[in-house]
Every structure is written in structure tokens, then in C-alpha cells.
């Protein structure tokens, strides 16, 4: 449900508004999916509720006022400095909005996470951030563009009608109608999602993996080979890895130990027939099933082609000076990349079966994205597909959910992940 949330005039010229740099006479509209919002009277007045939008707006006020440092030909702010000033402004914000604390939590709690969930900031190593001080937009469709800068909403409304702005109080997403947008300073959605730097299809991915994998025998002590069925009915094929890791592959409809089973699809690659396999092993200490050694198994004779991180001979190079607490250690990076590869492989198999007419295509209208294997991260980064679509998370993920660009963004993400969308 979407309800219009209207800001009211400020009750008076109290210092809070001046300190925050907010023009209390500004009148504009916020959007929300929260049914309870109708019970809130004057959110912009003293003692009224704060939202993720409010937290992001405070951060934009901060970044637009901060003295920046020039590094690598970019104007940057360090996280320590941002932290210091954000905490100072938080004091004023908390005196304006009674629910400021919960709003900060919903926006990510930690100021680093708040920034990660905001548009208008690019993040670099060692805690350096690049705020987009000048207007910048990501053109989504013919009607709307995502505002990808830290220009405050109050400032924006000085040159734009409130009817040309769409702002979500739940996620902080800000959209600008294209008719009100300057013709320059825009980039395309395709560019933003890096479509040209992704594999173009499931076939392209599997063929690259096949050509770059290593032909060698599987180890005998690392688990039992299981083969992936890809589909278990003719609906949109989904795979829930958590279920298999919990219950094991023997009780899974997606896996079988029988390579010759008729429900294990075999694909014709380079003139031979191949099935996708993996070694499943039970981890007694963690009481979970672990999947390793993703491989393509040739029917008949021949060693399998290992297409794991090591099978593909991929190396991850990290900067040794990197000390940020959210950094991945090398082992964790490899483990994460392995999971990423397995997700890619399994999605590729399912998509091939869709392409061949054995299962249904997903619909861009369908909000259910679970089990589709979309490339994403639990860290809500603008780089992650999940950041835009996952509406199930308790924190403010699913940034476009309920917005006018939700369907077009879902379609773009499905296509980036090789799905042919209805």
C-alpha cells in the first residue's frame, strides 16, 4: 500500500531548523508503504516521527556543508570526519523528531551503512567517500530518474515543483521527473548496472566456465557427487540453497546421485553431453551440508571439468593497506566468490531449461524474487541487485519497492541475470 505523506509547516523558528539547515516553510510530499502512516499527524513538526528519508536528508545536509579533501582528482570526505559531524547533527535532529533513534536504525544504524544505502555517494577504500555535490541522475525510463546526488531536498524544491519529485520515506529513494531534469548530468540505467561488464547469457557463462575450468578427477574424501535437476516442476524455477544446506541433498528434490537419471538435464557443449554436479558433504561441527567442487560431468568417459574458484584458477587481489572493518579477509573472499560462482552456475542451468521451454519465465510484475539466484549482497550496496528488490529484509532493503520504477528496475535486473522476461 502506498500512502501520501505530507509535510506540514514548521511550528516555529526554533533553533533546530536553523541548525539543521531546513527551511521549515517548505511543503512537499513523501511516499510510504507503511499502512500505519495515516495515524501520524505532523511528522515534520516537533515531537513527530522520523523516517529513513529524514536520516538521509540529514546526511545530505552534512555532506553538502562539509569541507572536502582532494584525493586522486576527486573531492572526498573521510569516514571519521563524517562520523563526527553526523553525530553532532543527530543531536539537533533528535530534538526535532521523536523517533529519530529508530529512524537511524532503519537507515542502517551505523553511519557507514547509512551511506552505503544512500544514492549520491561513491565509496572508496580506507574510509574515503565521494559525495556527488552537483546534480546527477540515473535515467530509469521515459518518466523518472533516480537522484544520485546529495543535493538536499529543500534545495531541490527551490527549483522544482513538489509534484515532480517522488521521495520514499521508507527507503530514502528520491526520483525526479525527467521533464524537470536538466538535459546533462545523466547516465543510463544500463551503465549503472554495468550490463556491458556482465556475461550476456547463461550459455556464455557456462561456455566460459567450461573453457577455463580444469579437467581433473574429483577428490574422493570431500563428499558425494550429486547432480542438479534444475527444475522440479514447470513453474518459474527457483532454488533455495538454505533448505538444502539444512536438510541435505539426499532429501532434496533438486539433487540426485544418479548421473543417468532422466530428470538430470544433460547439455550439449562442444559436441559432448554434460551435467552439472557438485560434492555435498555434511559438516558435523556446524550441523550443515556444505557444497564444494562445482563441476561439469561428461557422460561416458572423461574427467570432470572443475568450475570452482580454484578450478577456474581465479585469484582475488586485495590491497594490503586496506584495514576497513568491513573488509573481507582473503579466505572469506574466496569462499564468497565460490558461493557466487555456484549461484551463477545453478541459475545458468535453470535459465537454459527456461530457454528450452521446460519451465516458465519469471515476470517483471512478480515481486517474488526468492530463489531466482539474482546477483546480490546482503550489504545494501548500489552495486547489488538485491539492494533494489529484496523487500523481505527487516532493514530498509528493496529500495525501489512501491516506487514508480519498481517494475522497470526488476526487469532490468532479471535481464542482467540472463532471464528472458515476459
Amino acid at each position, binding site marked *: 500500500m502506498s500512502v501520501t505523506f505530507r509535510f506540514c509547516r514548521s511550528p516555529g523558528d526554533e533553533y533546530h531548523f536553523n541548525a539543521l539547515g531546513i527551511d521549515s516553510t517548505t511543503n512537499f510530499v513523501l511516499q510510504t508503504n507503511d499502512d500505519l502512516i495515516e495515524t501520524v499527524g505532523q511528522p515534520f513538526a516537533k515531537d513527530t516521527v522520523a523516517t529513513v528519508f529524514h536520516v538521509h536528508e540529514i546526511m545530505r545536509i552534512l555532506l553538502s556543508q562539509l569541507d572536502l579533501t582532494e584525493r586522486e582528482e576527486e573531492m572526498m570526505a573521510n569516514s571519521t570526519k563524517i562520523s563526527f559531524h553526523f553525530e553532532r547533527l543527530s543531536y539537533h535532529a533528535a530534538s526535532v523528531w521523536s523517533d529519530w533513534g529508530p529512524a537511524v536504525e532503519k537507515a542502517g544504524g551505523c553511519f557507514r551503512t547509512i551511506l552505503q544505502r544512500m544514492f549520491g555517494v561513491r565509496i*572508496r*577504500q580506507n574510509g574515503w567517500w565521494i559525495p556527488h555535490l552537483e546534480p546527477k541522475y540515473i535515467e530509469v525510463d521515459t518518466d523518472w530518474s533516480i537522484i544520485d546526488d546529495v543535493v538536499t531536498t529543500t534545495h531541490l524544491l527551490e527549483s522544482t515543483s513538489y509534484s515532480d519529485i517522488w521521495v520514499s520515506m521508507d527507503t530514502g529513494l528520491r526520483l525526479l521527473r525527467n521533464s524537470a531534469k536538466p538535459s546533462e548530468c545523466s547516465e543510463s540505467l544500463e551503465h549503472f548496472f*554495468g550490463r*556491458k*561488464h*556482465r*556475461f*550476456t*547469457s*547463461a*550459455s*556464455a557463462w557456462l*561456455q*566460459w566456465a567450461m573453457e*577455463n575450468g580444469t579437467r581433473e578427477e574429483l577428490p574422493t574424501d570431500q563428499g558425494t557427487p550429486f547432480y542438479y535437476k534444475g527444475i522440479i516442476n514447470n513453474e518459474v524455477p527457483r532454488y533455495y540453497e538454505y533448505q538444502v544446506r539444512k536438510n541435505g541433498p539426499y532429501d532434496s528434490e533438486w539433487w540426485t546421485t544418479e548421473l543417468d537419471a*532422466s530428470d538430470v*538435464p*544433460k*547439455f*550439449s*557443449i562442444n559436441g*559432448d*553431453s*554434460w551435467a552439472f554436479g557438485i560434492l555435498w558433504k555434511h559438516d558435523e561441527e556446524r550441523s550443515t551440508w556444505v557444497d564444494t567442487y562445482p563441476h561439469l560431468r561428461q*557422460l561416458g568417459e572423461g574427467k570432470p571439468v572443475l568450475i570452482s574458484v580454484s578450478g577456474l*584458477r*581465479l*585469484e*582475488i*587481489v*586485495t590491497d594490503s593497506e586496506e584495514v576497513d572493518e*568491513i*573488509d*573481507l*579477509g582473503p579466505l*572469506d*573472499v574466496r*569462499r*564468497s*566468490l565460490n*558461493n*557466487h560462482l555456484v*549461484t551463477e552456475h545453478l541459475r545458468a542451468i535453470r535459465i*537454459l*531449461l527456461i*530457454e*528450452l*521451454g*521446460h519451465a516458465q519465465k519469471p515476470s517483471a510484475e512478480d515481486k517474488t524474487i526468492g530463489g531466482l539466484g539474482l*546477483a*546480490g*549482497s*546482503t*550489504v545494501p*550496496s548500489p*552495486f*547489488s*541487485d538485491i539492494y533494489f528488490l529484496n523487500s523481505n529484509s527487516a532493514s530498509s532493503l528493496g529500495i525501489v519497492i512501491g516506487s514508480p520504477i519498481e517494475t522497470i528496475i526488476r526487469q532490468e535486473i532479471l535481464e*542482467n*541475470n540472463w532471464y528472458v522476461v515476459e
Partner: protein
Amino acid sequence: MALKQIFRAGNRLGFLPWGTPGRRLGAARWTDLFPENQEAPLAKITLATTGVHQLPEIPTLFRHNTTHILPESTIGAHFTIPQRIKWQIIENSSESHLLDSQLSVIRGENSNFVLSAEVCGRVIGTYECQIEERERVSMPEITVRVRPIPGREQEGMCEFDCNQRHSFPERYENDSQNMELRIGNHAHRPTSHDIIRSRVYNLSFFSSFTLPLNKLLKDGIDTGVAYWNNGIQVFRADVIFDYSELQLEAISSGGCFTPSEVLITHLYSGDNSEEIVSLDLCFGQTTLHGWPVSYTIATPTQSVKIKKIENEIRIPVKREKIQQWFESPSENLRHRSITLTPNIAGLDLPSSASTIQLHLEVPEAPCLGYRGNRAEDWIKFLLRPQEEYHIIQQKHRIVDPLSDQSWIDEISPEKLSSMNRNNIYRGICGPAVDPPVTNCERVTELLPLAFNCLEDKVKVDFKTGKKLAAMYGGRKVIDVDSTEIQALYPRQKFRLEANDSQISGESPCNSISINQQGESLAMLSSNGTEYKYSENGKTGFDFDRLPEAFAYRINSYTFAAPQIPGVYYLYVPSEGGDHYLVEIEVRGFIEEAIE
């Protein structure tokens, strides 16, 4: 600059945009793998053909002047998507044609065409289709009795009526247009035919035939199919021919060889032109229903057609011919067959043929007592002349264990000759297989319990002895006139027969046994519970050799074999003055031996 860069073989492929410990990553950006001017995407991967396209069932019998829509696609299966079928007529003796999937069937009865189903450029099925001009209606099976037509000029002429009456669920016309009887690939026309309506839905079908026997029984076929045609339908019934009125059994014949068995040594010694057996043939009737009967005699080497002259004929067969028969290829080494097949009206009747067998008697080779090391073939050894046995015996200094016995002159020369031959063979040869001297586990267990050798006697346990006897398959009867080696198991009971009469009385108590070394041992006396040496014996007794001794029970005239496997010669004097000598091998018992 990206946080996590992906390298392969020293080359950067791209970067991972974000990450957190133990969590998933955002989509990898393969910035260096795909330049901006990236090439066209690779060809799509397809499913490997592991399943088979299934074609829907279609009829193969079509009515003239009808149209049919053939199925347009295959039946889908797991990972096999239904595919469009391209139908084609690849052979056509009709005027039928296809337009896409619409089949138009044109032309009359028995013309045909072949449909092919092509899927993805490959023919995966063909259908041989028949066109029927009329509707086919089935009727129950008919049995027709074939009768001879005596006095007809053409020999073997028969006649029969092929009739059926049937009630149908609907009304059919009774305008009989033609009738046909198919036997094998041949069609025959009746001398008359008709269809008569008895009630609204009841029709009676009639037809009469006159056919030579060789067209009926050709290739042994005794069934056919009858078709009556009216203007719209074809009425069909299976036909079974009953030939009992022809009395074909009256011309069956038989015969035998006299003698029916030839000893191998007799076959391969003497004059080749000597007639050593005769083939006695007995024929049936000279004619059947006025048709002359002839016979074909097929031997292993030739086939001869003869006209019968007398009811019985004797054909002498020379040694040379029989040798040829046994040297001709056959599945059986020990007999050859002669087949006598009657022929009537130009038709062989294999079902009335008889087979006569001539057996080749080959003495059994010794199993035990081998002392040499040569691998002399037993058959070749048997065919050696007697004088060669003597030379071998001299050369190898093989002692005849019976030579010192006082009664030796009273034993028939044939028997002594075969025993000596066997002894010489044992003296020069080594066993081709392990000699059967070891008992199976069960016999090894039961034997000392049933026959406990004490110092001066053998204690017999009746019940255990019966268990052992049951395992051996009971008591054996030995013909003392046989020159064959007699095989027994340890302590197996046996009786002796001469001229079909049991050897009995007290005289066997004075029997002696002689082992391969020529050492003799007196017969033990059995009272059912123990075997012991009788004081009345004329010879002494070596109690150390108790397990080697035979035993005789006068009450039942039954002998018991020694307990230790080996070669034994049993000499039995009789009250009538005859003396018997039997060569016995006591062999170890293995359970398979009974089977």
C-alpha cells in the same frame, strides 16, 4: 579503484564491487573480460539428446477414399520438447497423398504405402500402411476336416468344406461376391462359395475346396485364413486344418540296428568291408488312398530315396560305412542317427518320420590308480593292437596284479584282457584331472561313525550307515560278466549278478580282493552290526588293512565296498564252479556325483 580485483593467470578480469565477511557478493564486474566493443554472444547451449522422441500411435490400416489428420508433433517427455513431425509418403503403390498433415487414402484393396515421420531432419519412424477397400469383420476360428479323394487321377488330391455361421451385432448384406483361402503366402479359390442369411443378424458362410495335399501341408503349415467378401465388408476367420481323415500315420515306418551298439575296438579292428551291423527297416502301407508312398533314408553321410518293395527290408552295413558315420560331424560323440521320412504325393512328412540310432560303446577310462606321467588319449589307447599293449607292459615293466593267482585261467580272456589294458593305462598315464579319492565333508564326517575300524573288526552303526547309503543313492547291482570298471563309494553296498541271477549263498564268503600291488585280502563277514574276519577263511588276514577289506553279509547276499578309495579286483568263487572277477574303483564321494 575497486576493492577486490579478480585475476586469472596474471591477467585482471574484473572486480568484485562489494563484500562483507562470509556473505554473498554483488555481481562480479568482468570489466576486462568484456571490452566495450564486445563480440556477438556465443551460441546457445542446447539439451543433449538423451531422451527419445515418441511418436503418437497412428493406425496402419486405412479405408479407401478417406482422409485422416496425422498428429502434428511428437509426445513430450522429460527434457524432450514435443517437436513438429514432418510426414512423408516414401513408398506408394496407391494413389494416396499428403498435404501437410492431411492424408488422403485412395485406391483399392491390398494396395499400400509407407509413411515416414521426420523430426528435426531425422526419420524416427516408418509405418507400412495397408488400404482396405471394404470394412473388415472378424469371425470365430473354423476347423476344417480335410478328406482324400480316392480315384482322382492326380495323386494327393483332397477336398474340404470351409463353413461358418455367425451372429453379428448389426445387419450385413449376404451378397457373396468372392471367397479366398490364404495358406502361408498363397491364396486359393474355392470351387463354390455362398453367404446365406438365416436371421436378420445371422449369416452362414459356405465354401468348398479341392486342393492337392502338397499345397495344404507345404512347409508344415496347418493353419490358414478364410475371407468372404460381400459388396461392403470382408468377413475374416482363422482356419485350422484337421488331417485325421487322411490317416497319415498309416505310412509311418520304423526300424533298428542289429546290434544297436558297436564296441569301439570292434569298429576299428578287422576288415573294413565286413558287414558288422544290419539296418532293419519296417514300412507301413505301400499306398495311401491310392497315392504311392516313397521314403527318404537320411544317414549321417548321405540321403537316399527309395520306393517301398517289401514291408520289411534288411540292409547290411559295412564297418567302413559306420566308421564314416562316426567320423562325420555331429553334436553327439557316442551315437549316430538314421532318419526315415515318408513321402506322399510329392510331399515329405517329417511329422511321420522315425529315427533309428546306432550307439558306439566306449569302455570307461580308469579314474584311479594312475602311476605314470604320460597324457595318452584313452580312445587312441583303446584302438592300439593287443601286441602293442604287451610291448608297452614290457617296456615299462608293468606288473599284472592278477598274474600269480591260481584261478586266473578260469577267468574269461576278454575280461582279463580289458583288466590288463586298464592296468597298463594306469601304469603309464598320469591323471588328467584330480582323481576322485577325497570324500565330501559330510561323508568324511559320517564314514568313521558308521564304520568304526577297531583292532580286529569294523563296528557298524546301522542308522549312520543308512544316512550314508541314502547319500550314495542306495545299493548298486554289478553284472559280473561286464568288462567295464565298476565304480563304488566307500563302504557302499552292492550285489553281484550273473546272467540276470543274483549271486548268493555262502561261496562269496570265500572271496578275496586284490589291490593294485597284487596283495590279496580275505573277505570280511558281516552280521549287520560288525564286519569281522571269519576263522573259516582259507587265507590269513592282515588286520592293519581292515579299511581295505570288502565285506559280505550272507543273510542279504550283500557286499560292502572297502573304506579306502582305490583300485580293487574282487574274486568271487561260486558253488556251481564258476569264478567271477570284477574290477572295482572305490572313489571318493562328492555330492555332485549323485546328480
